């Protein structure tokens, strides 16, 4: 039984078939990438996995249990975290507060205790701060700790998105185009971090990506999609040399 699997996943928006019959399985501890041209349905799959949209057909299984039809806010509790393509950070809060919000599902205190700020709440707060600090160290965000997100450059925001997702203590991390908008140096850092996430933190990564060099470097397996359908599934080399994939996405060898 695989760590995470989608079976015959399909969704239709009116007449538009965004995702049709997609099935794949992700093993624990691997980095699995989905590639494909724009409009292929990659982010839609992420939205399906985060339970933002209910699928019109198919199932999603995580750690052996079916999660289709559950509510979006339960996903974090199950151990799945995600970043968003267009960055959905909390703009009017500091980086630290954003990360602390990521610790929400570790909350063990109730409203009454919090209003009185009992010692239990204080201890919990200090524990949250320590946990968040570890993520800050991991991603080198120390100098941005107290900055308001609204004023940060794009590259830093992407890292904060990832940090916030890591703060939820996930077993499966969904990264939506982690290197888009980053310069080569930042993309390099991103590659190192994804490798560290896999090796040091033991988190399984499911990624959507366009940058082929990053894909080749970090991925264990790749799924190529086109127009909502699966095109090819295999290791990075296999998929990149698949003629169908080359024709649809990578560009034909003239």
């Amino acid at each position, binding site marked *: 039984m695989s760590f995470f699997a989608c079976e015959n996943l399909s969704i239709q928006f009116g007449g538009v078939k965004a995702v049709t019959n997609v099935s794949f399985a992700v093993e624990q501890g691997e980095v699995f990438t989905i590639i494909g041209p724009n409009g292929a349905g990659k*982010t839609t799959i992420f*939205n399906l996995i985060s339970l*933002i949209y209910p699928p019109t057909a198919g199932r999603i299984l995580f750690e052996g249990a079916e999660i289709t039809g559950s509510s979006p806010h339960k996903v974090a509790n199950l151990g799945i975290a995600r970043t968003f393509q267009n960055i959905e950070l909390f703009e009017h809060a500091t980086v630290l507060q954003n990360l602390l919000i990521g610790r929400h599902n570790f909350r063990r205190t109730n409203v009454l205790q919090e209003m009185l700020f009992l010692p239990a709440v204080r201890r919990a707060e200090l524990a949250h701060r320590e946990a968040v600090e570890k993520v800050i160290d991991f991603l080198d965000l120390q100098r941005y700790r107290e900055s308001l997100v609204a004023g940060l450059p794009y590259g830093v925001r992407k890292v904060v998105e990832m940090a916030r997702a890591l703060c939820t203590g996930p077993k499966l991390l969904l990264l939506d185009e982690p290197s888009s908008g980053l310069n080569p140096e930042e993309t390099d850092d991103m590659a190192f971090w994804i490798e560290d996430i896999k090796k040091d933190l033991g988190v399984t990564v499911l990624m959507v990506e366009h940058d082929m060099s990053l894909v080749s470097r970090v991925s264990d397996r790749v799924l190529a999609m086109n127009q909502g359908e699966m095109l090819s599934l295999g290791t990075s080399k296999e998929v990149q040399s698949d003629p169908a994939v080359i024709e649809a996405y990578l560009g034909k060898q003239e």
Partner: protein
Amino acid sequence: MAQFLQLAFSGIALGCIYALVALGFVLIYKATETVNFAQGDLMMLGGFFGYTAVALMGWPYWAAIIFAILVMAIFGMLLERVVLRPVLGQAQFTVVMVTIGVGYVMRGVVTMVPGWGTETLKLQTPFAEQVVNFAGAALALDQIMIIVLTAALCGLLFAFFRFTRLGIAMQATSQNQLAAYYMGIPVRRVNMLIWGISAGVAAFAGILLAPITFVHANMGFIGLKAFPAAVVGGFGSVPGAIVGGLIIGLVEAFAGFYLPEGFKDIAAYIVVLAVLIVKPSGLFGQKLRKKV
């Protein structure tokens, strides 16, 4: 049956007023996503200008209507230029609060103008006190005129938006102002024009309403019923505003007669709550969803 017809008729006439206010309101919302809480007060000011033309300057009724519409259109454009333009781009509720402030100022200033003051003033119309008999019901001529004139104005506006590029320009600026600028749409001029048209429509409503409620500084509070009308019809939909207004007018007329006392005032709000719970986007509204 005659009673029913009479009630329905009054309901439609009142509904036309609501529809006009809601129309002005929806126009502004479509163009700038601003919710104009001062729309009722614009109507009130239009009523005052109409009164001024007829009672204080002695002009004929039809000239007074044109006068009030033109003056209010200019006022609306000035309002947009001076007060609304600086805040456009900030959070929606902030802009709403600005319009609330504008309403306060308008109500306050109107009571301080000599000749207007705090009294209730009567606007003379050529069809006051006259009645038409139809199917056993006595229908007031000024209510008939309200319905007829409203229909005429709606036809005019429909033609204006259908056959000019303004309608499309309006929608572009409301969805993404910066992109609209890039496309060469004169955003600021479009916004100003829309406010002018809206204020003109409000003035028209004010003059039509004057015979029924008389002209006074708090006349604009009826405009608050335009919100339920706009919501029922579907925010952002022009035909929706009209249909919504008529529905609210009819609901109030029948509630006033068939339900115990006090229900008439809140009937509109009960209806709007029901609509918001069941179908928030209203009868004709669009359901939009953020794409992540």
